[in-house]
């Protein structure tokens, strides 16, 4: 069984990799297995964790769970074409709740916290802040302020990017591009790590060529 398991894993791994060459039956087979198995995985997981684990085990302690069950039931009415339109209600509910919830969360966490974090002294003579008043540090803090400020200018919708405003927006896009470059560099690293993990499986676990 152990041999079979390893070979099966390797077969599927190579099947997916074969897509790099071109679309082919090996890939199509792996893809079909993947779609079927993973859809099944999620059906089973959601069934046991959410329906049974959350609702069935919990409704005695928390009767409000029935609201969720009711919304879920209304959702399932889609299966009855005549009254399928009722499923818009739970959808409307979810859309409303998501909007309200994230409106506040993003306002508090993204906007407020990030604005606050940008408010740092450019330089300081006091010891108390622990701030090093070297030129490098001053330049760095200036760059952060300028970058954040001009980046926001770039996103302004109600003014055309012209003149001084356009200049600021251009500086802003420079910073955004640097951000993307850094993200890209970091991502390359991450993606390569994944491939290393797979190679470690193929050459190590499967074929036993490396330690």
């Amino acid at each position, binding site marked *: 069984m152990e041999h079979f398991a390893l070979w099966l894993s390797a077969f599927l791994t190579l099947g997916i990799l074969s897509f790099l060459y071109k679309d082919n039956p090996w890939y199509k087979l792996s893809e079909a297995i993947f779609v079927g198995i993973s*859809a099944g995985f999620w059906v089973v997981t959601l069934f046991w964790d959410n329906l049974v684990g959350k609702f069935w085990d919990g409704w005695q302690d928390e009767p409000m769970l029935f609201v*969720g069950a009711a919304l879920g039931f209304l959702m399932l009415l889609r299966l009855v074409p005549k009254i399928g339109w009722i499923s818009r209600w739970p959808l409307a509910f979810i859309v409303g709740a998501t909007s309200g919830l994230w409106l506040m969360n993003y306002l508090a966490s993204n906007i407020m916290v990030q604005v606050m974090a940008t408010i740092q002294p450019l330089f300081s003579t006091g010891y108390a802040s622990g701030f090093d008043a070297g030129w490098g540090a001053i330049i760095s803090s200036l760059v952060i302020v300028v970058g954040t400020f001009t980046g926001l200018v770039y996103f302004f919708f109600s003014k055309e990017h012209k003149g001084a405003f356009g200049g600021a927006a251009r500086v802003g896009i420079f910073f955004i591009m640097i951000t993307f470059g850094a993200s890209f560099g*970091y991502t390359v690293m991450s993606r390569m790590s*994944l491939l290393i993990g*797979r190679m470690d499986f193929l050459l190590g676990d499967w074929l036993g060529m490396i330690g």
Partner: protein
Amino acid sequence: MRQEIPLLITAIVGIGFVIQYFIPHWPFSRMSDWFSDWFSIVGACAIILGALNLMKVSIEKTYKRKEDWGYAAVIIASFLLMTIIGIAEGRGFRNPGTSFDWLYNFVYIPLSATMFAILAFFVASASYRAFRARNFEATLLLIAAFFVMIGRVPVGHTLSSFMPIGWQLSDLASWVMTVPQAAGQRAIMIGIGLGIVSTSLRIILGLERAHIGGGK
């Protein structure tokens, strides 16, 4: 009516969830907890719709012997296999040693990890083909990427070991990450925050309504 009720629900629920942020008193204090529970229950019900849809499409394809119908049959078989085993295993379906766990470890994981790893190849081909210094902005992107990529691996250290401490490639990489990168990131995050506030508000006010079937 079919349009007004969903809009009304969205508006009331949306405003309720904004208000709950400021009211610690029951029941407002519990609202976000409840919503998380409700959402997971609705999600679990909705996946039935999804699974039925997947089955319907695949069965149709197999039955009508459309192109590639064999693969559709494989989808049906593997879906049923995983679902039946998982439901039959009972609550402990995830425990080590179950058939579900076996399928998970030897089928699901290799497939998922390999699909993820394919990215490494695409990253390289995109680098070769698309990352061109065609203007100043693109050049900046490339330079930043270069410093981060080279500065984050030991090779970078070897290449720049003659430089004074603080000016080596790894230091430059750190500086790029913590200063200009963070600044750009912040602008993007604040912008996104405002975008979400505005979009949410449009939805709550009923200006956006297509997704609940209430177009003009």
